[in-house]
C-alpha cells in the first residue's frame, strides 16, 4: 500500500467573476519513506498542491474533484475535525519563511508543547521532554534554554531547524516542505537540506519537497514531478528527469541551471512567462513558449504518456527525441 495516492485532483478558485482552475487533474503516488520533488516556475501550482493535501486551501480555493488517499484513507473533503487529527500528527508541513511561520508572542516551548498536546494526552513536563529531544535531533544547542525563548530571539536558520523539529514531534508519515530554504541565507541552505534529508531517511518519513531548484531536487529526492500551469507535465525518477528530460519545459528548466551555462554566457532562461490561471492557453499550456510547438499543440491538450522511463504530457515527444538523437549523431 502506498503512503499517498492522489488521483485526478482538481482545485479551483471561485473568483468574483469566474472560477479558475489552479490544479488540473493531478495524479501521483508516494511510497512509504519515499522522497518526491515538485518543481516548476512560480505560479505552477506547487504550493496549492501541498496545501490541498493538508486540506488547508484558503478561500476562495476549494477541491473540486479527485481523490487523495493517505495511508489507505480518503482525505479529500474530510471534515475539518477529522482532518485536524491528521495535520501535524501523521502529515506535517514545513513553511517557506521561518521568520513569519512561528507566532511572535508565544515561546518556542509553548508552540512545541501545544502541537504535542493537540494530538496526545501529555503533561506539559512530558511534552517538553519530547520537545527537547527533538530539538537535539536537529542540532539545536542548549535546547532546554530555547524553550523559554521567543522566535525573534533566534536566527532564521535556527528557527527553520526548530520548525523541522516541530514537524518531527509526532513522528509523521509524511512531511510536506514548501521551499524550506528559499528565505534563508545561502550559506546555511545546504545545511538545512542535508538535515532534512538525514532525518527523513533515518525516520523513514515520506517527503514532498516543493522547490524551483532542480539542483536541490536531484540531491534530495528519488522521484520528481514537473508542474506547469496547474498540471503535471513530466513525472518519473529524479535521475531520469535530470539526465534525460523529455518535456521541452523540463529541458528548458535544466538548460537554465547555472551549471549548464558556460562561464561568461548568459543563463538560458525559457522565454516568456507562466500564464495566469485566467489565461491558460488552450491545447498544451506551454505551447506559446515552446520552440517545438506545432498546430496540434495549440488545439489539443496532450495526454500523459509513458516515454523512455518517465511519464510525459507532450504531443511531440517522439519527434523531439528523434531530432535530438539525430543532432547528437550528426
Amino acid at each position, binding site marked *: 500500500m502506498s503512503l499517498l495516492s492522489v488521483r485526478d485532483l482538481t482545485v479551483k478558485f471561485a473568483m468574483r467573476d469566474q472560477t479558475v482552475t489552479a490544479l488540473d487533474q493531478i495524479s501521483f503516488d508516494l511510497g512509504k519513506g519515499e522522497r518526491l520533488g515538485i518543481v516548476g516556475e512560480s505560479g505552477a501550482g506547487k504550493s496549492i498542491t501541498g496545501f490541498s493535501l493538508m486540506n488547508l486551501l484558503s478561500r476562495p480555493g476549494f477541491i473540486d474533484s479527485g481523490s487523495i488517499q493517505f495511508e489507505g484513507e480518503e482525505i479529500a473533503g474530510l471534515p*475539518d475535525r477529522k482532518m485536524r487529527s491528521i*495535520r501535524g*500528527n501523521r502529515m506535517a508541513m514545513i513553511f517557506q519563511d521561518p521568520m513569519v511561520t*512561528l507566532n511572535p508572542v508565544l515561546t518556542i516551548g509553548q508552540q512545541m508543547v501545544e502541537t504535542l498536546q493537540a494530538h496526545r494526552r501529555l503533561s506539559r513536563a512530558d511534552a517538553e521532554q519530547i520537545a527537547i529531544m527533538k530539538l537535539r535531533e536537529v542540532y539545536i544547542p542548549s535546547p532546554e534554554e530555547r524553550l523559554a525563548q521567543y522566535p525573534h530571539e533566534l536566527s532564521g536558520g535556527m528557527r527553520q531547524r526548530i520548525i523541522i523539529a516541530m514537524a518531527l514531534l509526532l513522528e509523521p508519515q509524511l512531511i510536506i516542505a514548501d521551499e524550506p530554504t528559499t528565505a534563508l541565507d545561502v550559506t546555511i541552505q545546504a545545511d538545512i537540506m542535508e538535515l532534512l534529508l538525514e532525518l527523513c531517511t533515518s525516520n523513514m518519513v515520506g517527503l514532498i519537497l516543493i522547490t524551483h531548484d532542480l539542483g536541490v531536487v536531484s540531491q534530495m529526492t528519488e522521484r520528481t514531478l514537473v508542474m506547469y500551469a496547474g498540471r503535471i507535465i513530466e513525472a518519473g525518477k529524479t535521475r531520469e528527469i535530470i539526465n534525460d528530460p523529455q518535456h521541452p519545459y523540463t529541458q528548458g528548466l535544466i538548460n537554465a541551471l547555472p551549471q549548464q551555462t558556460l562561464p561568461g554566457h548568459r543563463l538560458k532562461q525559457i522565454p516568456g512567462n507562466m500564464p495566469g490561471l485566467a489565461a491558460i492557453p488552450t491545447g498544451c499550456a506551454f505551447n506559446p513558449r515552446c520552440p517545438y510547438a506545432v498546430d496540434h499543440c495549440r488545439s489539443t491538450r496532450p495526454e500523459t504518456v509513458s516515454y523512455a522511463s518517465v511519464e510525459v504530457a507532450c504531443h511531440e515527444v517522439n519527434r523531439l527525441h528523434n531530432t535530438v538523437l539525430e543532432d547528437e549523431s550528426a
Partner: protein
Amino acid sequence: MLAYLVKRLFQAIAVMLAISLIGFAIQDNLGDPLRELVGQSVSEETRQQLRDELGLNDSFFTQYLRFLGNAVQGDLGTSYFFKEPAVDVILKKLPATLELVFGATLIIVGLSVPLGVYTAIKPNHVLAKVIMGASIVGISIPVFLTAILMIYVFSVEYQWLPSYGRGDVVHVFGYWDTNFASLDGWSHILLPSIALASIMLPLFVRLIRAEMMEVLQSEYVKYAKAKGIHPFRIYFVHALKNTLLPVITVGGVQIGTMVAYTILTETVFQWPGMGFMFLEAVNRVDTPLIVAYLIVVGFIFVVTNTIVDLIYGLVNPTVNLARMGA
C-alpha cells in the same frame, strides 16, 4: 529598562510643560483677576498698585515661571466661585469622573473583545453583519443624543433606572466616594457609563475586528492550522494576543481621551464630576478652575499614555524595553 523609564518620564514632562504653557496663556488672556478681587469701585491708581503687587505687570515669561513654580507645588490658583484652591475643587470631583470612565471602560473591554473576535471569525454571518451595521450607527450618533434617548426610554417611559446624579455613594478609604459598593450606586452609574462608552465601543469593535482579520491571514495562523491546533486555541491564543497588542496602544490613548468626553455625559446626567464642573466653570468664567481642569486632565492623559506604553512593552516579547531606552 531604567533608561526607557527615564526617557518616557522626560517625554511626559515635556508634554506637561506644553500643557501648562497653554493653560497659562489662557489664564493670562481670559478675564481680569483684579475685577474678581476688588470689584468695579476701586480707582485706577489703586488698581495699578495692586497689579504691581500681584506681579501682573511682570513679563509674560516671569509670570509663567511663577505660575509653573506654584503649579509644581500643587497650587493652581483659587477658584473665583468656590473661593477654594482650584486643585481641591477638582480633586473632590475627580472620583466621580474616574468611576464613570472606569464603568465605560469595563463596558468597552467586556463587549468589544467578544464582538470584535466574533465578527472577525464569522465575517459573513448575519449576526456579524448586524453588529457591524450597528457599530456604524453607534459611531455616528452623538453622545448626548444617546444619553437623552436612554433617559427617555429607561428613566421616563419605563422608570427602571435613575436619570441623574450619583445616588447613594459609599465612602471608602477616607477619601473616595464610590458607586460600585451599593445597588443604588450601580443603578445610577449604568446609564452614564453606557452613554460614555457608546462612541468608543463601536470604534473598538471595528478596530479589534480589523486587526484580528489581518492576523488570521498571517503565516503563523496558517502554520498553527497545519499543526492541527484546535480553532479555539488558534483564535484565542494565537490570534487574539497578536490582535490586542496594537489595540492596547490605541485603547490606552482613547481611555485618556474619554476623561475629556465626560463633559457631555456628565452634563446630561447631572453627574457631579469634573466634566460637569468644567462646564459650570466656563459659564462663570472661573478662569483658575478652567486652567486647573485643563492641566489635571492633561496630567491624567500623560500618565495613562505612559502606563499604557509600559504595559505594551511588558506584554510584547519583541519589544525590548532595555534597548528602547538607547
